[in-house]
């Protein structure tokens, strides 16, 4: 019986694999060290993203101010600590930390210099200009930037833009702006009759467009995750 069930079980696959983990060694005073860490995160925002981090506590005595909070401080910065090494002898203060596996051994690789994010260059945002009317059933998809239409967008047409959408004729179809996650994108129409308005995933159906703005020049923007339709007037 036992033999039978053993035979039907699938064989186990056990493999060894090595991953590169980053080792962070905090120094006292911890408040200064965290300040340096923040500066580093600012320079290369994606550096720690999704990477396993081992916290090396060799440089600490175990009595530093803020050590109890350190784990939470790092967690709040999206730094994923998978383990701790170099535990100080008096480590009572770490009792409140999650029970991480204590690592020993390991082989040092060179010191890693975090890359520095390239500064945002002053290049123009790409835009897509269309002079023809957009017919029912047509879809314009431009995730790179703004879409400008110097004509009308028919009912049953759809405009998708990474940035803002400008329609200098009548907007009768669907306008979906900010699809690349831009909540500051807007929709402008000389004649607002849209079937659907959406910015960065928040949307408004046609019937919610204020009556007084229907067929009038209007702009659409996102304020606190709510779509607002406003008259297209000169603002102070």
């Amino acid at each position: 019986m036992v033999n039978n069930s053993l035979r039907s079980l699938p064989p186990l696959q056990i493999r060894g694999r090595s991953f590169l983990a980053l080792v962070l060694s905090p120094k006292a005073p911890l408040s200064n060290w965290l300040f340096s860490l923040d500066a580093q995160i600012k320079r290369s925002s994606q550096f720690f993203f999704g990477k396993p981090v081992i916290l090396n506590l060799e440089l600490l005595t175990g009595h530093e101010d803020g050590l109890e909070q350190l784990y939470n401080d790092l967690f709040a910065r999206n730094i994923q600590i998978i383990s701790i090494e170099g535990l100080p002898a008096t480590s009572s203060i770490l009792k409140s930390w999650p029970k991480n596996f204590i690592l020993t051994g390991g082989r040092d690789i060179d010191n890693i210099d975090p890359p520095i994010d390239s500064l945002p260059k002053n290049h123009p945002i790409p835009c897509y200009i269309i002079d023809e009317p957009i017919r029912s059933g047509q879809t314009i998809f431009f995730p790179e930037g703004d879409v400008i239409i110097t004509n009308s967008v028919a009912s049953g047409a759809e405009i998708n833009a990474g940035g803002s959408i400008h329609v200098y004729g009548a907007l009768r179809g669907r306008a979906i702006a900010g699809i690349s996650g831009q909540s500051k994108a807007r929709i402008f129409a000389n004649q607002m009759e849209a079937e659907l308005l959406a910015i960065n995933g928040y949307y408004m159906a046609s019937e919610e467009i204020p009556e007084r703005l229907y067929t009038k020049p209007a702009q659409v923007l996102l304020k606190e995750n709510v779509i607002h339709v406003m008259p297209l007037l000169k603002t102070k």
Partner: protein
Amino acid sequence: MSKVIVITSGKGGVGKTTTTAAIGAALAKTGQKVVVIDFDVGLRNLDLVMGSERRVVFDFINVIQGEASLSQALIKDKRIETLSILAASQTRDKDALTEDGVKKIIDELKEKFDWIICDSPAGIERGAKMAMHFADEAIVITNPEVSSVRDSDRIIGILDSTTEKAQKGEKVIKHLLITRYATNRAAHGDMLNTDDILDILSIPLIGIIPESDEILRASNLGTPVTLSAPDSAPSRAYTDAIKRLQGEKIEITIPTDKKGFFDWLLKRNR
């Protein structure tokens, strides 16, 4: 230089077949050589409206599949010598319309006729796409009604993107023909008005055909309205439209049937 014209609309029942017959006959009456082709394979109607249903032996699909020659399939109109019809097959479906087959027939027809008028089926599927594929010009038929206008808009988009001309980077010339225009309803504001239609579709208007009993009567007779009642309001509108199609500049008007006291009296006593 012969011209290939597609009569299309997207929506059904707006008057494509009636218009094909009326325009075909009106052009042929001026002495031009005209062929009308029914692309509605499986639901053929043009032969009925043209009154040639009892003379169909071979059809369009027979020619595409090499079962008959073009001259065998072309039916000469009995009333006008320069008018011919190529009927659709009622027993096949639209998959039988191959691009190469249609191209071969249209090229052959171009040698024989001045005008090749393709009557498109409703919808945006294969039949409709094949009917417009080789067109030089398109007459988009719209009724003054929102769903018809939206469907026409869709068809214009397809004309601009999938036809042979569009693929070559050229444009199919487009004309708008408003049909079933009811003058009395327009006066009451019950109908979408012409300016709104033109604003939405933004293609030039080639004519407005008034709603008329003459059209229904013509269809039932199997005679294009431009032959059965050439002086009726819709016939005059169609005649003006073909003049505009040929490049004449005529102001767009909506013809009406004059109804005097005696007409009313006669109608009552009929």
